[in-house]
């Protein structure tokens, strides 16, 4: 029972982590809570669904395509809705982000309708594996595997590649990075592309997990993923992974011990408590007050 719930929790948490990474990276680089990020996740899920059910593509190819489309979407959103606001107040950018979020979800409502859509039968070869008294599906294992693979890939890009290092430099000191000859705008676009791709992957995986894709799935998942990012320490990539998994596991265990109707409140209660007692999150760094 415990093992079963743990695996369920980790599988759910991995999807939160995938979305949380985008929040954390974008916040790290332009200190904006990208409210539209949850909708990118939703769009990703729909693209994946479309590829599988209409174009009859393999689920993994569909996921890769969804990631590509969302990369472009993320970059375009930044270009249109955020770039010009980079020097305005934080509030303006935040409201613009909320506007994008409303726009995308109502667009999805218009195009795909209000009902949740499921993946066609056999889109993913489902098998159950028995470990002890736990039933673990191949889907759960795949989710955990893909999430882990993508996160390791991201970590590699950020730590080892030239553009990844430029991302870190830019998130630390915008002007100093520009003085190095780094094209800051391009680095920011790249960050949005990367984060959006991960969110799209998360969207397809969640769509498979619940076998439901709907226009309003972005809001709650986005908010929870944000909670995960804050829990881990916003701006920290390992923090987002840790936060996502912790949140997923807590949520599943909360449901298991009978608080299923408070499911959505659990994530936010954790969020509020973390903000109150350790505002920098589990792996975040302290920020010195500037006078």
């Amino acid at each position, binding site marked *: 029972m415990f093992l079963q719930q743990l695996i369920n929790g980790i599988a759910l948490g991995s999807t939160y982590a995938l979305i949380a990474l985008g929040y954390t990276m974008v916040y790290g680089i332009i200190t904006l809570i990208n409210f539209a990020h949850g909708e990118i996740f939703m769009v990703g899920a729909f693209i994946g669904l479309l590829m599988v059910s209409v174009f009859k593509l393999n689920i993994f190819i569909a996921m890769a395509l969804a990631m590509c489309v969302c990369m472009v979407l993320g970059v375009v959103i930044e270009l249109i809705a955020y770039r010009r606001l980079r020097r305005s107040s934080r509030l303006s950018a935040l409201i613009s982000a909320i506007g994008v979020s409303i726009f995308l979800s109502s667009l999805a409502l218009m195009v795909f309708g209000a009902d949740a859509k499921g993946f066609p039968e056999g889109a993913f070869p489902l098998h159950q594996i028995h470990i002890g008294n736990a039933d673990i599906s191949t889907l759960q294992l795949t989710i955990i595997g893909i999430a882990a693979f993508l996160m390791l890939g991201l970590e590699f890009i950020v730590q080892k590649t*030239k553009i990844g*290092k*430029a991302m*870190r*430099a830019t998130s*630390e*000191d915008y*002007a*100093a*990075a*520009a*003085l*190095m*000859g*780094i*094209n*800051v705008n391009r680095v920011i676009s790249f960050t949005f592309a990367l984060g959006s791709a991960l969110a799209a992957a998360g969207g397809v995986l969640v769509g498979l997990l619940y076998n439901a894709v709907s226009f309003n799935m972005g809001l709650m998942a986005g908010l929870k993923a944000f909670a995960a990012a804050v829990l881990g320490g916003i701006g920290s990539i390992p923090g987002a992974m840790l936060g996502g998994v912790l949140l997923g596991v807590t949520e599943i265990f909360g449901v298991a011990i009978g608080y299923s109707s408070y499911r959505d409140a659990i994530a936010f209660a954790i969020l509020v408590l973390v903000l109150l007692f350790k505002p920098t999150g589990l792996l975040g760094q302290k920020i010195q007050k500037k006078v």
Partner: protein
Amino acid sequence: MLVVEDLFVNYKAIKALNGVSCQVQQGEIVALIGANGAGKTTILNTISGIVPAASGKISFEGKDITDIPPHEIVRMGISQVPEGRRVFSKMSVLENLEMGAFVRNDKKGIQEAMEHVFQLFPRLAERRKQLAKTLSGGEQQMLAMGRALMSNPRLLLLDEPSMGLAPMLVEKIFEIIQEINASGTTIMLVEQNAHMALSIASRAYVLETGTVVLQGNAAELAADPEVRKAYLGE
């Protein structure tokens, strides 16, 4: 090599520069001195493209660079060591230096530049794996200078290299600045330690509230009673 003509810069309603003109010849060390808020840093930042000019013209090696974005300026051969060092504190010494070479793609050249930097600052070689935030103030200054040298600049802009450093270190840093200059890099230096700056510079400009009030040969300026007055209120 660098010509600044009648440069005006505003921050909102505040006029930071009121028609500054100055120039730097190939191979020189030129010092900009003056009190806080006189506009020294603004000049460097406008040359680097971080701060937009309201009017006026900046040209480098004959090309107009007034409205060119900062990352292009670095490519053209100007690099800046900003005030307060601003190293990437969460990155290692090595990674900081790699960032300095961001515009370059020649692996061999980068390797050579890095060896040159380690030769100038042996301390950095010892600490190449450490995160920059664990370095002392003096070491961070060395890292900031080393980082700027990684792009092989023809003109190096130095902003307050002595700030917050112990006197022993200040002398060391100034020796290295002369060394860098001797190896062929032209230098424009902003410094509050006027005597130190004038002792290594060939020429200097004295700024006050966004305008050049005095200029000339560094040795002559060092002896000028006006300079002493500006600094010590004599």
